[in-house]
């Protein structure tokens, strides 16, 4: 990738802010990361992994991390709170203590804003931060590593269960500044521990901005992590996110990621199986309209025997929106008895909508069960007719069918406030559809 103006200006901006970033011990890593970005550049559709998502406009917008942008009022977003959850608010890329409410945490749990942790418990972080998602994994993770300023670190000691979900609320309201934020979340779940993490992204509609998030999750032996993501960024925003997960023996990871926001979004989830008996369930999708573009890219990398992965993705597309699903399952040599499935379905509601689907299998072991399926089409005419014949209007019937269609990604969703959080996202989108 040749160096160009856009990458050059990003490097310049790094030189300006690097001394103000937290954690002096990280400076070498950050410098290496920006050099890696210099070499890799922004991803382009010329690379297979970015075939369907073009970041050209994003690169040209010239988003930059800003030094300090006051503290706008965040009460407008109070309905994005998950009831009863511990809440950490990251506003414009920085921890907002006033809006956050971590509450009491039992022993064995450490939860802190990343900016504090990078200063206070540096030795603790050194072997963990930026290890699960190394910066040479792509231009965007390199940028995040170079610029990461805040986010959350959550650590669970062995055997600890957190009853309350932990919500990280990422908000951007930069008032006229073309802001880039690079939040980083690190979750380390000890053996036999359990946690639920909710990441919510939203922002003000006045200006375009860019959220470039990286989330690293390590799940210990027989531990269980549920990960819910609601992406409700402003329709002018760009959202790129990488979640990288490592699973130890018998670990369980469940994720549900629903996107309704952003002009262009890319949600990338990569799971590596380090121990036998581990299970990953990745679900997600997007509800889109206008000229929105949403990309869900996944990778389940089975390196050891007896691991399971399941992927379920659903997209609903109205107007001239585009959806992308690139799912990949890799079964390495020796990873016998892998059981994996992949399902992607896309619902096209309008003549201008386009769905791209690429469910990929790479299999190097013979004693495995791997299947995938993908369909694209419009609403089932018979189902629609059936509902109408029961006295339901066309528009109501359509909404009902859309709801049922998207609900397939919620199979693994726990009841309660976390479930409501995503259901709210669906109904908010539906209201716009009526």
């Amino acid at each position: 990738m040749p160096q160009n103006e856009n990458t050059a200006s990003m490097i310049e901006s790094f030189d300006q802010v690097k001394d103000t970033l937290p954690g002096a011990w990280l400076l070498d890593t950050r410098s290496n990361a920006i050099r890696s970005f210099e070499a890799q550049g922004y991803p382009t559709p010329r690379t297979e992994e970015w075939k369907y998502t073009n970041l050209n406009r994003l690169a040209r917008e010239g988003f930059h991390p800003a030094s300090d942008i006051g503290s706008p009022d965040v009460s407008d977003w109070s309905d994005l709170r998950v009831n009863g959850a511990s809440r950490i608010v990251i506003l414009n890329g920085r921890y907002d203590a006033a809006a956050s409410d971590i509450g009491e945490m039992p022993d064995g749990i450490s939860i802190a804003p990343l900016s504090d942790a990078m200063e206070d418990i540096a030795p603790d972080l050194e072997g963990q931060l930026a290890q699960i998602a190394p910066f040479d994994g792509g231009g965007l993770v390199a940028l995040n590593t170079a610029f990461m300023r805040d986010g959350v670190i959550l650590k669970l000691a062995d055997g600890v269960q957190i009853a309350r979900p932990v919500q990280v609320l990422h908000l951007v309201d930069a008032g006229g500044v073309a802001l880039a934020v690079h939040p980083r979340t690190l979750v380390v779940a000890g053996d036999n521990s359990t946690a639920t993490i909710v990441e919510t992204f939203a922002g003000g509609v006045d200006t375009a901005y860019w959220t470039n998030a990286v989330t690293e999750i390590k799940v210990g032996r027989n531990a269980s992590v549920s990960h819910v993501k609601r992406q409700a960024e402003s329709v002018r925003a760009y959202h790129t996110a990488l979640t990288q997960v490592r699973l130890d023996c018998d670990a369980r990871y469940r994720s549900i990621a629903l996107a309704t926001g952003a002009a262009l979004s890319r949600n990338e989830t990569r799971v590596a199986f380090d121990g036998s008996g581990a299970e990953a369930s990745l679900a997600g999708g997007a509800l889109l309209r206008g000229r929105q573009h949403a990309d869900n890219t996944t990778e389940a990398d089975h390196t050891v025997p007896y691991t399971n992965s399941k992927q379920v993705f659903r997209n609903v597309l109205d107007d001239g929106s585009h959806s992308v699903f690139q799912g990949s399952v890799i079964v390495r040599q020796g990873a016998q008895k892998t059981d994996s499935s992949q399902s992607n379905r896309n619902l096209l509601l309008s003549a201008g909508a386009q769905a791209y689907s690429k469910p990929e299998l790479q299999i190097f072991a013979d004693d495995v069960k791997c299947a995938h399926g993908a369909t694209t089409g419009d609403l089932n005419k018979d189902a629609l007719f059936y509902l109408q014949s029961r006295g339901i209007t066309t528009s109501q019937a359509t909404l009902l069918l859309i709801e049922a269609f998207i609900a397939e990604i919620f199979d693994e969703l726990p009841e309660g406030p976390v479930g409501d959080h995503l259901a709210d996202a669906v109904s908010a989108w539906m209201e716009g559809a009526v």
Partner: protein
Amino acid sequence: MAPPAETAPVFEEAAKREYKYGFVTDIDSEFAPKGLDEEIVRFISAKKDEPEWLLEWRLTAYRHWLTMQEPKWAFVKYPEIDFQDAYYYAAPKSDEDKPQSLDEVDPKLLETYEKLGIPLAEQAVLAGVAVDAVFDSVSVATTFKEKLTEAGVVFCPISEAVQTHPELVKKYLGTVVPYTDNFYATLNSAVFSDGTFVYVPKGVRCPMELSTYFRINAANTGQFERTLIVADEGSYVSYLEGCTAPMRDENQLHAAVVELIALGDAEIKYSTVQNWYPGDENGKGGIYNFVTKRGVCRGSNSKISWTQVETGSAVTWKYPSCILEGDNTVGEFYSVAITNNYQQADTGTKMIHLGKNTKSTIISKGISAGKGQNTYRGLVKALAGADGARNFTQCDSLLIGDECGAHTVPYIEVANPGAQVEHEATTSKISEDQLFYCQQRGLDPEEAVSLIVNGFCKEVLKELPMEFAVEAQKLLGVTLEGSVG
């Protein structure tokens, strides 16, 4: 998975068996000098006594090729190809004076065909097949010409068609696969040696299956066939392509281009059995098969059907495609691809739906054994105008042994809400139970595997014309020899 102890020696012995069709016929070839430049392109064109426009086309393609990069995206690995270290033209000596009947054909050539099991005269009579056998680059014998002429069907080497039907060749050549298409197709456009030309006139049902046997013979000669089949309105033609190649050490490049054009209400059925030398059990040698095959359903209600059985070649890179331009057109792709030892295959299809109510079916069966790598890569694209388009895709992979790989990379791009596109794929292995059951009925392990694999491929094999189906079934067994684990 290790083979059961008591059966292991059988497999080892079978694995050492040599390539059945490996032999070299000693014939003086007339070579163009090694390497590639404009002079060579001119030399090839002059050799064929081509008109000016074709030479210009070749040169334009060559100049464009110089600006192109070799594609790297396929799941295949092979040593860098030195395009200057190969011959681009070789003709059997008898080229200057083309034989008028079989008696005049170089007896050594005939011997080659006999070893291949296709004695021309016999096959032509028994099977009712017209054989246009391409030996290296120049066609040596064409049979049943009169019968075809009677029906008005043109079936001849493309070099001959350039002389006898220049208007048809000029009208259609490069319209489906333009010279700018891809690295290997562009190379082919510059240096194509010979190939087949078929034209079926309006409303004619071709009275027999047309068939060409290709065979690469001269050492270090890349073969660059160019096939062009045009089915005019309301016509039907079934074309068979099959090949075997002699054993040798150096890799040989094969970059063919096949163009099919089906006008309104026409139907083209194109069947391939590919059994080129795949390299030895250590992955040494073997053919590089980088082929561009594409058909266009230009008029409404036309149909193109591809059936392929890919068992040979060290590296295969091939995506027979259909562009469904007219309304109500149909595209089909049936494929069996087998990789054993160190073979690699990256193959699949592209179905591009442009017209209304266009339909396509893709059935792909991939079998990997030994250290073979088998990839299905396919594109299904429904454009905004393709109202009511319909696609069904099924890709099944079968793994034999724990060192091989089976990969599936479908690309599904839909821009019309009225289109219905479905894709499904499974991956499995031959189960112990199935093997045990067959063995317990008295089959030896290899017969059992062959039986199970044939069952797995049945949906595809039944699409092949009879003569081919028999050959293909045998081929599956031969290819998998020594692979059971």
